[in-house]
């Protein structure tokens, strides 16, 4: 399995071919649209990531110390960011989540979705995943 750093480099290379903001967002939105829609009954408070201006849901699953997840959002941009997180992290060992390097999103120019803007929630999404990864690592330890 590729490491998150290798995957980040690949994503970065894909985006580097895009010339302007419109193309970058176009590509991000395509990524979001490629995620399967989450069944409605899973879009509940338990799976809702709090702290975003748009609604984001994550359904996580822990298998043998690795964390898998599905994501959905009513915002296609946020869904695109969630799709990038999925490419980066889905199926990685729980420890990889704790040390994930988010500089990829700065490199891509999607910095505005990072932490300081309380409504935008990339940080909120990552923190939701880190909590699930923590539980996942603890399960294996038991």
């Amino acid at each position, binding site marked *: 399995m590729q490491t998150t750093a290798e995957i980040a480099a690949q994503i970065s290379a894909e985006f580097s071919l895009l010339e302007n*903001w*419109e193309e970058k967002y176009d590509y991000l*939105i395509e990524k979001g*649209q490629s995620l399967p829609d989450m069944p409605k009954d899973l879009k509940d408070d338990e799976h809702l990531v709090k702290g975003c*201006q*748009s*609604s984001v849901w994550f359904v996580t699953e822990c298998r043998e110390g690795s964390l898998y997840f599905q994501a959905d959002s009513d915002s*296609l*941009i946020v869904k695109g960011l969630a799709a990038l997180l999925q490419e980066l992290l889905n199926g990685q060992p729980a420890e990889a989540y704790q040390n994930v390097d988010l500089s990829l999103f700065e490199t891509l120019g999607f910095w505005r979705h990072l932490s300081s803007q309380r409504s935008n929630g990339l940080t909120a999404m990552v923190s939701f995943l880190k909590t699930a990864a923590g539980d996942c690592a603890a399960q294996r330890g038991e």
Partner: protein
Amino acid sequence: MSTPISAARADFPILSTWINDHPLVYLDNAATTQKPQVVIDSLRDYYSFVNSNVHRGGHTLAVRATDMYEAAREKVARFINAAHAHEIIFTRGTTESINLAASSFGEAFVHPGDEIIVSQLEHHSNYVPWFELCQRKGARFRVLPFTPTGELDPEVLQGMFTEKTRLLALNQVSNSLGTVNPLETLIPLAHAAGVPVLVDAAQSVQHLAARDVQTLDADFYAFSGHKMYAPMGIGVLYAKESWLEKLPPFLYGGEMIDQVSSTRVTFAQLPHKFEAGTPNVEGAIGLGAAVDYLNQFDPQELQTYEEDLLAYGISQLRAIPGLTLYGNPKHRSSILPFNVEGIQHYDMGILLDTSGVAVRTGQHCTQPIMDALSISGTVRASLALYNNRDDIDALTRGIRRVIKMLKR
């Protein structure tokens, strides 16, 4: 002779900047307006040649700073036609103005079982201070609902007044829907019931000619500098002298006292009783400069210019398939709140920004309005005196482009 409004754009240096390889189209004026060069210069000049603490300083700079600070108060008083300059209290902004009023008025006049009425159209800053006051005092918090068109119904308000009603708090223009509330009807109704009125003028004082507090007969009138072309961090609470004399101070400290000993403290005269601590002198002077700037335009001409532009914006937005414009009040000012079917407001805001168009998205600090409309938020474009039809055209072009991007 007033200056033509179409010439104003050149006075705002930031409007000639480029954003994301496009000329800036600034349509987030309800959040804050840009500043004309004369306001920017007033701050630079203050710190270059005047800076000193105000009041009770004997040296030349202290006297100059005090004179300029008090001259700004007089300019603001004339701008809203207050009867006295000492009815103008400088604050940090509308939020602090309303908190001051709620705290001091509540302390003196609100008791268990009393009632406060606010409208459902309020920004959280004219809602939460009253809600919390009612919680503290065991008073009843009552909400005047808005109609399906986004307006307030005088008859419904009339039916809400009781002997226990202590105050009505409402805005002159809704920050979320742009509704212009008919204060000329609502304030006399309240006064006939013996109820004083606090007006949140944050979205109106810079747009409407009807800002004469004596004609409106507002008991309290609150607004921010930064939404009327002045710096951030300066605002105003106007209150009738008769109220200010009856209210206890909000903050205690320097500047606001007369005599202090271990057994007795007496407070300074108005307005200083309500201005504890070193005030925002540069902000007040900047606000004075903004008032001077606005005074070169005829207020009615300014209102007509902005309302014509708003009408153009409404017609252009309504021509976009799938677009819902919220509220349909008879009189609307400066605010264009909308969504496009199937597109999240946040996505619309981010993607408009890629073409240099600045709007705001979300709930606009008005959750009660969003709940009533059963929506999670809106896109809000909001106008100022320097906007023109090109800005509206850039907005609608941008929206059509976003629709094309997202609806494949």
